[in-house]
């Protein structure tokens, strides 16, 4: 598993240079505005603004499409259903609202490095300190998880091979139980190792 890089597209546009926190706040404002816009005309204007932002960021058509692609069938189904239940105006504005919200959120993802986004999100989570989670442990938790993904994926591959050798390829149980048990063993060994390095003191 080596595709764990996120969708960031390198660039030097204004949007790339804005701090992640500002972009997140802007996104929240934009999504609120989208909910408040009622007429198809207003939403069409919003679509023009979104397209202009994409052009400003210069991330390329392929990257933009990759952000919207997951909701394409949903958008079609939603449009048809709204057309039946709420008429053409409602269908256009509801569908546009959903697609635009996804597109704008995608734009923030495309123009922000994963590391910068994680730092901004960690700051958002810092009030967790009051329930006993200190920020250092929180960021350790996040980076441990990122590191654990390839480890667990490797465990899954090993269990698959063992299954093939035993001739029980079709059994979900014979896949999931060893995977979960070996993940737990790995987790508890990891916990011991962290503890041995003095993280509990």
């Amino acid at each position: 598993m080596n595709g764990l890089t996120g969708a960031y597209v390198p660039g030097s546009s204004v949007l790339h240079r804005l701090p992640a926190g500002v972009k997140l706040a802007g996104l929240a404002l934009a999504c609120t505005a989208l909910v408040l816009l009622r007429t198809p005309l207003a939403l069409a204007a919003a679509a023009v603004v979104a397209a202009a932002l994409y052009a400003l960021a210069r991330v390329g058509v392929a990257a933009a499409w990759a952000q919207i692609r997951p909701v394409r069938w949903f958008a079609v189904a939603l449009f048809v259903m709204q057309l039946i239940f709420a008429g053409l105006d409602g269908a256009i504005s509801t569908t546009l609202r959903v697609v635009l919200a996804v597109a704008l959120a995608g734009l923030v993802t495309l123009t922000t490095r994963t590391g910068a986004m994680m730092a901004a999100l960690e700051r958002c989570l810092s009030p967790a300190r009051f329930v006993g989670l200190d920020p250092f442990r929180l960021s350790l938790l996040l980076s441990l998880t990122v590191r654990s993904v390839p480890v667990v994926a490797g465990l899954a591959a090993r269990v698959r091979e063992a299954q093939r050798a035993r001739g029980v390829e079709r059994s979900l149980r014979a896949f999931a139980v060893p995977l979960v048990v070996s993940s737990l063993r790995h987790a508890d060994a990891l916990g011991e190792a962290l503890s041995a390095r003095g993280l509990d003191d």
Partner: protein
Amino acid sequence: MKDEGKQRRLATQTLARVAVFAALIGVLGLPGTLNVFGNVVPITLQTLGVMLAGAILGSWRGALAVVVLLVLVAAGLPLLAGGRGGLGVFAAPSAGFLAGWVFGAAATGWLVERAGRDPSAVRLFAACVVGGIGVVYLFGIPVQSMITGLSLGKTALLSAGFLPGDLIKAVLAAVVVRGTQRAYPDAVPAVHQERMRAARGR
């Protein structure tokens, strides 16, 4: 137990378990991890992972594992089924289901914690249905209805299409959790908590 602050801090054991389970939920959604019936029916097991996290880690640890996964997804890592990631998934109509995962894992864990040191498969199944399906839909359906503007009833009817698959996953989760807890008793939340308490009182 030295002092109150120490007790409430996230022990490294917990830290490691939460991180690995967050990763496990992510891995269960990776394409090609698991193909049932060859390649014909792509089944993602991510909701299975949510049920597993609750039933094995217990309520708040299970919920924390889901939160960690969602934070990484928000940061842009493609950890949701089908390689989805980024902030877009939280603006999409299914966003409520993601929020529901957090509370679903917590509810499943809460129920399993109360099932004693050796939870039966039936108790586990019930916990997975209540948390992994009931609570998840409870959050998912209203949000989807709000975003799409369809009535609650119609949205619920649409979501009912996922019910058979989710029920199968709940059965599978119960079987897998039962198997895991027999092979590794420390995977029972009640047993793990007892051991942690004993270790602290040392």
